[in-house]
């Protein structure tokens, strides 16, 4: 689905979302409430400009519409891989975006992310993964890095990584794996509008992803280790 189809399905009560250079922003109606919508499309890489534009839209919502819910639509091939972005400090731009979302959460805005196409690495950490909860469409792909670059960094042969990316939950790019690990709260197969309304109603400020990863069996150690460190106890086997 392209972003217009996704938006029409999510917001049957109406929306005014505009695209400018692959950056999406606007407002929509959900269950009689107005929500702010930001996002990206066209698998666009997140460079310094688009990160700052998204942050600006979040700050604007915090300033002008206290408490209004925010929906983040995710489609990106990840952070832009350019020397210029690094020179300008792209990590600061992305951190700034993440902090703006966090500020909104602290001030009572509910925030839901949806990976409707593709999510990758740094572009995901400061979009869907910083929301109260992130959801995905069934055909969404979520990954950390392209396999050739990963092979170069890890020194693991590309063929071996390609093999693992077929079905290994830690390497395979499907939304289903992120669901099992708790990174994705749910996968929306039908009636997106109702699913979004439910998601906004359930959204809360607590980060429960490690617990979900344990309950669903995809990340068996994260919650147990964090708890053991926090309480000074032994790691409880899953």
């Amino acid at each position, binding site marked *: 689905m392209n972003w217009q189809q996704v938006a029409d399905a999510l917001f049957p009560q109406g929306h005014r979302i505009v695209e400018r250079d692959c950056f999406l922003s606007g407002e929509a109606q959900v269950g009689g409430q107005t929500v702010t919508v930001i996002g990206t499309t066209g698998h666009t890489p997140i460079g310094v400009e688009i990160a700052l534009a998204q942050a600006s839209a979040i700050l604007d919502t915090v300033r002008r519409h206290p408490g209004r819910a925010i929906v983040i639509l995710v489609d990106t091939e990840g*952070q832009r891989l*350019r020397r210029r972005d690094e020179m300008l400090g792209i990590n600061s731009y992305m951190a700034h975006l993440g902090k703006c979302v966090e500020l909104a959460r*602290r001030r009572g805005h509910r925030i839901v992310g949806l990976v409707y196409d593709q999510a990758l690495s740094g572009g995901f*950490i400061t979009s869907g993964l910083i929301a109260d909860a992130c959801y995905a469409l069934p055909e969404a792909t979520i*990954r950390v890095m392209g396999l050739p670059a990963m092979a170069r960094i890890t020194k693991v042969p590309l063929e071996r990584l390609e093999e693992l990316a077929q079905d290994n*939950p830690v390497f395979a790019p499907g939304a289903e794996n992120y669901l099992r*690990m708790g990174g994705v709260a749910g996968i929306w197969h039908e009636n997106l509008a109702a699913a979004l309304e439910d998601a906004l109603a359930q959204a809360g400020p607590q980060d429960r992803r490690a617990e979900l990863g344990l309950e669903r069996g995809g990340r068996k150690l*994260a919650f147990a280790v964090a708890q053991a460190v926090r309480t000074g106890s032994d*790691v409880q086997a899953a």
Partner: protein
Amino acid sequence: MSSYQEATARQRIAGMLDEGSFMEFLPPQQRVVSPHLHQLDAPVSFDDGVVVGKGRIQGRQVFIAAQEGGFMGGAVGEVHGAKLVGMLRRAVDESADAVLLLLETGGVRLHEANAGLIAVSEVMRAVLDTRAAGIPVIALVGGSNGCFGGMGIVARCTNGIVISEESRLAMSGPEVIETAGGVEEFDARDRALVWRVTGGKHRYLIGDAQDIVTDDVNAFRDAALRLADAARCSGNGSGSGTELTLEALEAEQRMLGSRLERFGGCEDPLEIWASLGIDEPQAVPLLEIDAFRELADGHREGAAS
């Protein structure tokens, strides 16, 4: 002088804290190792590449974490990330005076790809939760592996960064950019270029690092304490001073927007340094730290956190 860069994670912690005061959480004797590395026949470490715990520095109760660059470049896997999260939560539970994050990392541990990515996100949110609880979180970047990937984002979510001129802070590593865009986009073997783009002096000059110190454990500790104390004291009555505020983020929005306007057309950091008013930018890499600071402090961008 005691080199920070050459020290291991454990040596850095020992050098930071009052003697004998360190209590490690989930020490290596408990042998909690990565559940994912075996499938790639990669070695495991009994601390999964990060040491977490608490101790004292000059009367303060400090919670501390140090990533070990010698184990998989300090990269964050499921257990490694969970140890950081657990330490941050405990710092809140026990009302720590400060949290110090000694970051040396390539970011997500690619051998644990998906689990590592979620872990970095959890660390990022836990850092912000800690700040919201009124506890300053300071990042120290002084290892030879630098601080990259998602952890480069996490570093900029803290109250402040102390960096050394030898270390580096960025997002994508030069090798990754070269693999994606070719050697003409970023020549990862051009050490001088890599250093100009990602190194401590550039980060200090453009305002992404709040302090720069010589490669010395004591210098790192003293600078980190100064930043932590400054963060705690900066509250204006309405907030704790460590937490995010609309005013601070609006200021950061302006700072980053202005950076883009002023330097977005530059090809090389040398041009940025010249635009900042530095007469001989090509001399910057050669300056000793004191001379550099004296020069930089008259020209650098305000460093928001």
